[in-house]
């Protein structure tokens, strides 16, 4: 048994949420809470004062405190933000054992020897956590075994943030603790019904009786409760920093300048990850401009990012930025001052090693398509996913190469879908046309869905097609559930003299568009 020192950051998930830029509405000082599976998982002090409790249902929390801001809890976010704290702690202590986000253990003996005493090392670690993450508070528990140390840390107060259990006193310390600290719901509930309230009562039952009634699991709990259990610390070296910020020497406003400037640093970043045995399949690229604006985007790779892939992503993102801002009325184009990579979910490199006989023809396809992407841009190379389209306009069925295709969850019936056979050509931008009757007047659709005359001509620009037959109009109310993108149209199928079919539609504004061609 090695004496352990545990650093615990209460409410870590909330601290992580405060840091998350995608949750701007969650800030310190307001009633806020994180929700997991419909119940409150963690709530801020302000929410607690208003009566919100952990475990409450979401709607009850809203009733208790109408101004509460809720967000989904995210284990990945907690973990990633705590990782940064650990990286900063490495300056003080080289090896750690991460128990959960917000809970990390160290060997106490080495720390006490180096910093003079356990108390001094605890103070030092608390300061280090505070420096790394000013929003977080740290508590420290020290005991002979890991379980007691965690319990000790969790039973500190803001006023006395350090609690040390004297050597050999773990069993005495634990005896007063409520049985619920065992965190084994089934057993705790059973023991509660048997009238066992504290760990002391539990230990008093005797190991024989516990083994008989609860089996090996009970024996494990008994060992924990006597201060003998708790696995030895599995120590790890410092995690690799999976983020990198590249500061540019001066603001650049040309894509090629930037690509040239970041190439070496990106290569170093990629090499650093590879040396640590990681590859990244998902990366968040953040571009900071000199006018204090920031552009952020997450990129996914079907295999993993190499350095040149990363540079390509920065170029595409920058091109998109400049395109988006081209309409802005500014004297100078914005200059890029920093590029930041954050590898999300880095994966073990060995899972991505090529096989002994190369890695199949698909990697060649990927290589070539990536090359084409570097010529025409990320969204210039598209792959299709087989999904049906309600609307003739179906550009959403295509996804850029390398992105995960949208998953169609419930391929149920599509009311309003076109009947088969479907049009072989679908215009990505519907063309405006004129539909003319025999007397030369533009045809309109009445409110009762009737045509003002028989369609005779289809006029597109200077070209005029005589219509041989036609059917319709059919009223279609697309996406009625979404007011922003819903539209009400009348559809018409026509066949021209050459035998080619057309799908045309009239909008509410009485304009005719060609949606698709049956050719």
């Amino acid at each position, binding site marked *: 048994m090695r004496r352990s020192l545990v650093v615990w950051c209460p409410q870590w998930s909330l601290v992580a949420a405060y840091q998350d830029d995608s949750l701007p509405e969650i800030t310190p000082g307001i009633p806020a809470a994180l929700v997991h599976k419909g119940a409150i998982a963690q709530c801020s002090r302000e929410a607690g004062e208003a009566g919100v409790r952990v475990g409450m249902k979401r709607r009850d929390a809203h009733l208790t405190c109408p101004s509460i801001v809720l967000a989904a809890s995210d284990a990945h976010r907690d973990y990633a933000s705590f990782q940064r704290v650990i990286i900063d702690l490495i300056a003080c202590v080289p090896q750690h054992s991460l128990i959960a986000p917000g809970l990390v253990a160290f060997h106490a003996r080495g720390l006490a020897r180096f910093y003079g005493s356990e108390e001094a090392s605890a103070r030092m670690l608390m300061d280090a956590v505070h420096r790394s993450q000013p929003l977080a508070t740290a508590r420290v528990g020290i005991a002979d075994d890991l379980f007691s140390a965690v319990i000790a840390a969790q039973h500190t107060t803001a006023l006395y943030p350090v609690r040390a259990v004297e050597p050999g006193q773990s069993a005495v310390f634990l005896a007063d603790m409520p049985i619920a600290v065992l965190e084994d719901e089934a057993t705790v509930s059973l023991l509660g019904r048997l009238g066992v309230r504290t760990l002391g009562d539990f230990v008093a039952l005797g190991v024989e009786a516990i083994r008989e009634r609860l089996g090996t699991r009970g024996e494990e709990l008994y060992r924990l409760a006597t201060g003998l259990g708790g696995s030895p610390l599995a120590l790890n070296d410092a995690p690799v920093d999976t983020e990198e910020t590249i500061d540019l020497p001066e603001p650049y406003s040309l894509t090629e300048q930037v690509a040239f400037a970041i190439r070496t640093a990106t290569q170093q970043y990629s090499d650093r990850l590879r040396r640590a045995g990681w590859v990244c399949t998902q990366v968040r690229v953040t571009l900071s401009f000199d006018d204090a604006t920031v552009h952020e985007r997450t990129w996914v790779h079907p295999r993993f990012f190499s350095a040149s892939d990363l540079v390509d992503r920065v170029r595409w993102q920058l091109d998109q930025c400049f395109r988006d801002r081209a309409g802005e009325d500014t004297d100078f184009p914005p200059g890029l001052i920093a590029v930041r990579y954050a590898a999300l979910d880095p994966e073990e490199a060995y899972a991505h090693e090529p096989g002994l006989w190369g890695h199949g023809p698909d990697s060649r396809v990927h290589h070539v398509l990536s090359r084409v992407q570097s*010529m025409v841009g990320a969204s210039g190379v598209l*792959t299709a996913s*087989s999904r049906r389209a309600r609307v003739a306009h179906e550009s959403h069925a295509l996804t850029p*190469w390398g992105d995960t295709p949208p998953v169609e969850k419930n391929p149920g019936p599509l009311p309003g879908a076109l009947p088969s056979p479907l049009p072989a050509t679908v215009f990505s931008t519907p063309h405006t046309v004129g539909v003319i009757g025999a007397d030369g007047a533009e045809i309109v659709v009445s409110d009762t869905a009737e045509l003002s005359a*028989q369609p005779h001509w289809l006029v597109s620009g200077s070209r005029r097609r005589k219509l041989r037959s*036609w059917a319709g109009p059919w009223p279609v109310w697309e996406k009625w559930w979404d007011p922003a993108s819903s539209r009400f149209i009348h559809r018409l199928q026509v066949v021209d003299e050459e035998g080619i079919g057309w799908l045309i539609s009239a909008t509410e504004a009485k304009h005719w568009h060609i949606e698709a061609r*049956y050719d």
Partner: protein
Amino acid sequence: MSPALTLEGAPPARAEVHALQQRIHAMQKTTVEHRVFPVSQAVANLFPERGLSRGSIYQVDSSASLLWALLAEPSQSGTWCAVVGAPDLGLAAASEMGVNVDRLVVVPHPGEQWFAVVAALIDVVGIVALGSIPAPSDHMLSTLTGRLREREATLLVRDAWPRSEASIQVRHQWSGLSQGSGMLHEHRMSMSSTQRHGHPVRTCEMVIDAWGAHEQTHHAPVIDIAHHRQAG
């Protein structure tokens, strides 16, 4: 001058000529079989080898249904297909006609770089279909044909390019609509392919309906039994 090209000398033995002919014949047969992307039954009649020959350029009508009919079988058998410079695609129709859209790559707007894009794609993609793109120069064309032959890929173009293997024309006929009622339910396509080397024009008919694309089947002529009975 090599001996094979001299006209003087003893005429070669008949047996030797026969053996050589046999050899040429055998070689031609195997190459033809291997150097083709077989196409589906409905359009196979357009091609003497019953498929798109690898390393060639075909001029096809701008009909999208024809394109999907040509890509259906190759994409099903795992060949990657690409459509360059054609943003308006009915992918739902494509999968209805049997195209495996998971093997389809679309580069809708290659712009000025269409040549570089096509040259790169040919490395891995079996069949590349070009939409509306600027006419290539002679130099580009000869580079492209060389690459196509080397990579055994096939190019489908809309405009009349020199050196194309064949050109395929389509006439459409839709039925199902009348004056104000009905709906489009059957698409009859009459296709004709004109070969480069003065071969006879090959024709074939395809019908596309709610059950997909299939070959036009000619029913046996109906014999008027009643008439025969009266006569007999």
